[in-house]
């Protein structure tokens, strides 16, 4: 694999299609003197759907922020779409961790999606200009893609968590990014909606050719849609297919403590023995 390294600057890859969406090599992050994780190496291929898993405080959101270039690496190298983190902003769609919009928020979904397209542009928008009409078409298209056309013109505060999440994914997609970073998009959703949003993300991956990093608390609703898994714990990370990573051996090594992975008769994975066990909450919404 033609993986860029620190020694060879990305002179070619700036014009050529990039071999990976995200590459980390022996990367480390320190926040306020504390090492969050270190010696993390991983590669996310184009159009891969990758889940970022791990207990609270393992640095899952930190990984997303490092890929965005919002946090500098303390050691190692990172490449995002063939460039340094932070240089690829325009080609990344980002959905931060949040608690949803409250009922008093008087903003329409369609305006929120539009902001993803032109929110960083200065100057007065002129209604009816050709660019505006092209933008409006793109906004309508992406809202249709996530299946939110029916409620995009209602204030977002009045919508359900799943409807809000679809519109936010549309906002992240509106500039045709090559990489989508979704920080706990399933967190406030009930189980059927978690599966529905995961299926939507899978479809987007395939149809739009977008690589997706999705931070999740619980792997089970998304397991059947995933290509790969990044598991963060104990200041380190393991990357691989779900079958490789979610095993008693791999997780025991990562935690440095005995961990047991059980497979329920319905295929759900249950992780037993970890200090803070996200998997066990598989049916906390049910």
């Amino acid at each position, binding site marked *: 694999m033609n993986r860029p390294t620190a020694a060879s600057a990305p002179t070619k890859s700036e014009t050529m299609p990039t071999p990976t969406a995200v590459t980390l090599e022996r990367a480390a992050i320190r926040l306020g003197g504390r090492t969050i994780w270190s010696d993390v190496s991983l590669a996310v291929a184009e159009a891969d759907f990758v889940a970022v898993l791990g207990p609270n405080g393992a640095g899952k959101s930190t990984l997303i922020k490092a890929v965005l270039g919002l946090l500098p690496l303390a050691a190692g190298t990172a490449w995002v779409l063939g460039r340094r983190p932070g240089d690829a902003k325009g080609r990344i769609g*980002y959905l931060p961790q949040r608690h949803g919009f409250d009922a008093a928020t008087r903003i329409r979904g369609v305006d*929120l999606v539009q902001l993803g397209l032109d929110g960083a542009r*200065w100057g007065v*928008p002129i209604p009816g200009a050709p660019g505006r009409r092209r933008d409006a078409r793109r906004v309508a298209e992406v809202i249709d893609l996530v299946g939110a056309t029916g409620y995009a013109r209602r204030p977002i505060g009045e919508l359900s968590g799943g409807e809000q999440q679809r519109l936010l994914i549309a906002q992240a997609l509106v500039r045709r990014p090559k990489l989508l970073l979704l920080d706990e998009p399933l967190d406030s959703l009930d189980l059927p909606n978690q599966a529905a949003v995961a299926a939507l993300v899978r479809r987007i991956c395939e149809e739009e050719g977008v690589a997706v990093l999705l931070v999740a608390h619980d792997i089970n609703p998304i397991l059947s849609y995933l290509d790969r898994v990044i598991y963060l714990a104990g200041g380190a990370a393991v990357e691989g297919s779900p079958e490789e990573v979610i095993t008693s051996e791999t997780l025991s090594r990562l935690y440095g403590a005995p961990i047991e992975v059980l497979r329920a008769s319905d295929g759900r994975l249950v992780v037993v023995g970890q200090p803070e066990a996200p998997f066990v909450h598989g049916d906390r919404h049910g």
Partner: protein
Amino acid sequence: MVEAAIFQRLSWNPLTDLQELFAYPFMVNALEAGTIVAVMAGVTGWFMVLRRQTFAGHTLSVIAFPGAAAASLAGLPLAVGYFGFCGVGALALGGIAGSRRSLSAESAAIGSLQALALALGFLFVSLYHGVLNGLDSLLFGTFLGITERQVAVLLAVAAVAVTLVAIAARPLFFASVDPDVARAGGVPVRLLGFGFLLVLGLSVAETSQITGALLVFALLVTPAATAHQLTARPGLGIALSVALALAVTWLGLALAYFSIYPVGFYVTSLSFGLYVLVRIGRGLANRRRTIMRLALEGA
């Protein structure tokens, strides 16, 4: 008759009354100043309500009072005090907001600033003996004695502020609604927040000169909050906010001219009345929608 006592100057002939409104230069100046202020307050107020910064706006208006009092004490034009104090106040608020303390510590700090401002205002007023008439108009507004020069200053400041807001409209909207995503998309969220507080300070300084320091909310908050209730569309909302601010200002000035009560009272009551009507209307509409939905679900 009560009306006759309150509206002593009204002839009850609309045409003559309208003509009389524009007959005196002082009244023309007041209408011009009111128009300028209403446009600026409508625009910045809409963003302030969106950003949930009405507490900051209120603090700036309280700071406007010692500003005006200090200016009259020093023998300077009132505008110097209003713009100076509100500008410095906005910088201080920006500093408090920028230091990223917890929300409760932030509102406590802003509240303390408010108390100090009010205390300073009364100190300046008592140092300046025999200004009791002036105190009323500093707090509750006046439309008498606005000069053409003042109108020109109001216009210049408003033009600069509204132009700045127009240029930054989309990034400011983005940063207000969705700061995390905006920051990730390259929008200078903190700079915009600081810049907006400065523009807000200028707006409060302008509005204080018509409504008085204590009634700034009548023009800055109430029309904007009403507009937010009426529509979730940003462009239409801003237009509506300006239209409502203009309506209550013009009507308030006209009523004040023909009657014995101060202009601040009319502007405040009119905008408050509008807000209450819209809230009631929306409440009824929501109730009807809920009942219909429940009926549909039950069917």
